[in-house]
């Protein structure tokens, strides 16, 4: 617990499956809002949150084309948080579990999201002031 202003989060859920994903991103946003730097370890399905090929779509049931629908994408949420962190002169680091990426084929991730493994989670947690893990179900 050496850095007073860094929080580490570990998360396991993929996009578009669970309400946990929304709460997780809200926690990250709240951390930045309070002036804390953020480190994320994305484990298992959560590695798809940063997948660069996520694409918005229209929705005939909603009666809207792709532009009108403006579909949420987690890669854009990550980008928005990266931008918020930069504007506040905070760091926002994101590491995907590399094996989890490979087995899912989601290697193409947005800029600013790296690849690593469990030792990185331990390093993140050891260096941070505090850590929150959110498992999947």
């Amino acid at each position, binding site marked *: *617990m050496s850095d007073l202003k860094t929080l580490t989060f*570990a998360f*396991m859920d993929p996009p578009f499956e669970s309400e946990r994903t929304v709460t997780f991103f809200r926690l990250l946003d709240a951390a930045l809002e309070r002036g804390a730097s953020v480190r994320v370890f994305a*484990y*298992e399905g959560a590695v798809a949150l940063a997948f660069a090929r996520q694409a918005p779509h229209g929705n005939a049931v909603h009666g809207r084309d792709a532009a009108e629908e403006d579909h949420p994408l987690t890669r854009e949420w990550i980008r928005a948080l990266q931008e918020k962190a930069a504007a506040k002169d905070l760091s926002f680091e994101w590491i995907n579990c590399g094996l989890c990426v490979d087995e899912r084929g989601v290697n193409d991730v947005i800029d600013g999201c790296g690849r690593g*493994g*469990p*030792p990185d*989670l*331990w*390093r993140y*947690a*050891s260096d941070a002031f*505090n*850590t929150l*893990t959110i*498992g*999947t*179900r």
Partner: protein
Amino acid sequence: MKVLQVIDQAFRTTVEEQDDTILWLTQSMRGAGGDLQVLLSGHGVHYAVLNQRQPPLVLGTWKQSQPAELVRDLTNLTESGVPVYAVREDLEERGLAGLPLQAGVELVSRAGLADLYERVDQIWQW
């Protein structure tokens, strides 16, 4: 920094990942110097009384050749000095209380969890 890894679910991805992902994560972080303990609660207590390797899955022409070895994974942890606890009442609720515990696994009562939580710096609920 001492961390308690709480495994409350079991068999979540043991077929697909050929292990329990949190037992695997714990072994890997232990290798990186992590000061870790494991609490098996809820369905996680099943791991404390297993004796055999997981059954290989067969689907069509595909047969799993390397099913999970949860007994080995738990043994690796206990033999490397990671304390592993199982909740007594969770074993009892599931009719598992009469089965022998895997070597090195310690029983803890629900009433004893408060003390266990106080002996570590962080609790990581998975």
